[in-house]
C-alpha cells in the first residue's frame, strides 16, 4: 500500500471525499512557495499536487501559465522543486504528487529523477503529455522506484482507453472534467457528472476529478460521484494575488478549509 492508497482508504473509512490542491513549485519564489504548500496542508488538503514549471505549458490556461513563468523567472528547477518536497516532508506527511510536462523530466534523466523524487518523499507522478502510448519510457521506472504513476482520462477517451489508463497506473485516476485547458470556471457542464459516474464505474482506482473547479460548492458537486476533487487555478490565483506577502499563506489556508468543509 502506498501513502496515496492509505489516504484514500482512510477517507473512505471516514466517509469523506478527498481534496487535492495544486500549486506550482517556486511560485512566487522558493521560500514562499513552501509556505503556501504547508498552508494548503494545514487547511485540510488530503493530497498536494506540486507542479514542475515548464516554459510551454500547452494544457494549461493563463493562470497556471503565469505561475510557471513567475517560478521560472525566480530560478525554479526540477532539483529545487524536489528540495522543496524534501523540506515539506520534515513537517507534513500527506501524499505529494509531482505534476508536469515531460521535457523537464526527460532532461533531468528518468532514472535520476526516480531516485531523487523517491528520496525527497514524493509519492506519485503525473506527466500531462505522456499518454499511455508513450508512457513506457517513464511509467515502469516510476513504479519500480516505489511511486505511483497517476493516469489521466478525459471526456474524449473511450472505454478502451480508460481501461488501459487504469491498468497502466496506480494511486488514483485523474479525471479531466471537460475538454479544454486548466483554469477556474464558474460552472461545469451538466454532462460532467454523468461522465464521472460512468468512469467511476469502470475504474478499480479511486477517481479524482479536476479542471475548472473553483468554489467549495463546485468541489462538492464534482466529487459527488468521485473520490476526490482537484482544485488548481483557484488556489494559484490566491498565490498570484498575495505573492510573497505574509498574508498569502493564511488566505490560502482559509480557502482550502472552505473547500474541504464541503467534502466532509
Amino acid at each position, binding site marked *: 500500500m502506498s501513502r496515496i492508497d492509505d489516504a484514500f482508504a482512510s477517507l473512505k473509512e471516514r466517509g469523506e471525499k478527498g481534496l487535492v490542491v495544486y500549486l506550482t513549485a517556486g511560485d512566487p519564489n522558493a521560500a514562499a512557495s513552501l509556505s503556501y504548500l504547508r498552508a494548503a496542508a494545514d487547511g485540510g488538503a488530503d493530497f498536494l499536487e506540486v507542479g514542475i514549471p515548464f516554459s510551454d505549458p500547452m494544457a494549461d490556461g493563463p493562470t497556471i501559465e503565469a505561475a510557471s513563468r513567475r517560478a521560472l523567472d525566480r530560478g525554479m528547477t526540477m532539483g529545487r522543486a524536489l528540495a522543496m518536497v524534501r523540506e515539506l516532508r520534515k513537517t507534513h506527511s500527506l501524499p505529494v504528487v509531482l505534476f508536469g510536462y515531460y521535457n523537464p523530466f526527460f532532461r533531468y534523466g528518468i532514472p535520476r529523477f526516480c531516485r531523487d523524487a523517491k528520496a525527497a518523499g514524493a509519492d506519485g507522478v503525473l506527466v500531462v503529455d505522456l499518454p499511455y*502510448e508513450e508512457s513506457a519510457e517513464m511509467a515502469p521506472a516510476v513504479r519500480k522506484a516505489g511511486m505511483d504513476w497517476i493516469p489521466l482520462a478525459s471526456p*474524449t477517451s473511450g472505454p478502451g482507453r480508460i481501461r488501459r489508463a487504469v491498468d497502466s497506473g496506480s494511486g488514483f485516476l485523474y479525471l479531466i472534467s471537460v475538454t479544454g485547458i486548466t483554469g477556474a470556471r464558474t460552472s461545469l457542464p451538466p454532462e460532467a457528472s454523468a461522465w464521472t459516474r460512468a468512469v467511476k464505474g469502470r475504474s478499480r482506482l479511486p477517481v479524482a476529478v479536476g479542471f475548472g473547479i473553483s468554489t467549495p460548492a463546485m468541489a462538492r458537486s464534482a466529487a459527488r460521484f468521485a473520490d476526490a476533487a482537484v482544485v488548481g487555478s483557484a488556489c494559484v490565483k490566491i498565490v498570484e494575488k498575495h505573492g510573497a506577502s505574509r498574508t498569502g499563506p493564511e488566505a490560502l489556508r482559509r480557502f482550502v478549509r472552505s473547500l474541504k468543509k464541503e467534502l466532509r
Partner: protein
Amino acid sequence: MLRNIKYNMPNHVGHFGPFGGRYVAETLMAALIELEAAYKKASSDRKFAKMLSGLLRNYAGRPTPMDFARRLSEKGKGAKIFLKREDLAHTGSHKINNTLGQGLLADRMGKRRIIAETGAGQHGVATATVCAKLGIECAVYMGSEDIRRQELNVFRMRLLGSEVIPVESGSKTLKDAMNEALRDWVTNVRTTYYLIGSTAGPHPYPVMVRDFQSVIGKEAMRQYRSVEGGLPSAVVACVGGGSNAMGIFTPFIPRKKVRLVGVEAAGHGLSSGRHGATLCRGRVGVLHGSKSFVIQDGDGQIREAHSISAGLDYPGVGPEHAFLKTSGRAEYVAVTDEQALEGFDLLSRYEGILPALESSHAVAHGIRLARGMRRSQSIVINVSGRGDKDIAILSERMGGGRVAD
C-alpha cells in the same frame, strides 16, 4: 558507387527511430487516432488523390517550374545551380501543397472549422486560402511579434475571410502560436480540425505533411532528369520546422549518392545564443507533441529562437529531420541573418527572383556549396517562397540601398 537504400519511416506508432511519437494531453489522443485513420483511408482512396491532384494542377499551378540559374552558376564557377520554383505556387510558397491536402481531409471528416498556427504568415495565408475555397471557417494563431514583422500576410489572411488571433505569450512567435492553437484544439476538439503547417507536431502530422509536400521532390526529380539526365549531386533546402525540406528530400532519400543539405537559421551567429539552428545546436527533447531536437536550457526549458525570417524562428524541428541527421543521411548547416540577406541580394540581382528570407538561407548556402564543386556537377535549391512578404524587413535593414556587392 553508393547503393540505393530502403526507407520506410515512421513505424506504425509514428516513431522515426528514437524520434517522433505522440506526446500530447490525453484529450487530444482520440482526435489524433481519428485523424490517423481518416488520413490512412484517404491516402488509399483514388477519388481523394484525383481531387487533390486536380486542385494542385488547376488551382495551385503545379507543377512549378525548375529553372537553370545561368548567371548565378557562371558567377560561382562551380556546380550548375537549378532552382525549384515553389515561390510560383499559388499564395507564393510551398505551403499550399499541404493545406490543400489537409483541407480536403478536414472536409471529408466533416469538420467545419479549421485552426492553424503561422510564423511568417505563409502557412496562415495558404490555410485561409483553402478555407475560402472549400467554404470552411478559419482561425489563424500568430505571435504578435510576427504580426508586426509580417503585416502584409496578416492583411492577406483577413482579406481571405480568416480571423487572425494575436498571441502575446512567451516570445510572441511561432512556438507560442502553436501552444495557443493546441489550447484551442484541446477545447474544441470535437468540431475543429487543426491544420499544422510543418513536419512537426504529434503523429500523424509529420508523415502527413511530408507526404503532401513530397510532390515538390517528385517533380524536381523528374524535371532534373528530363533537363540534365540522372540525378543532381545535392539538394538544398531551408529548415525551420522542415516541411519544404522534407518535401524535396523525400523522393531522394533512397538515392544515396544525392547529398541532402538542410539549412537552418544561425541568426546572429551560432555562438551568439540568438539563432534558430535546432539541429545544429539543439539537444534531444520533447516539444509540441514529438521527440526531436529542441533549443532548450539544461533544465529542459524551451529557449527562444531567433532569425530574421519568421518562418525559421522556431526552437523545434520535425522528428524526421532529427532521424535523417542522426542516421547521417542528411547534413544540416546554418546560415546567419547577414549571409541570408546576401543570398537574397544575389538571387534578386543575378536571376531576377526575390526569394523569401527563409528560402534565402538555402540560396546562400547553395551558392557556397556550388562554388566548391566541379562544373560537371549540379545542385538543386528549393526556393520555397517568394519575398514580397519581407519587403518591410528588407527596407528597414537596407535603408533603401543594396545589402552586398
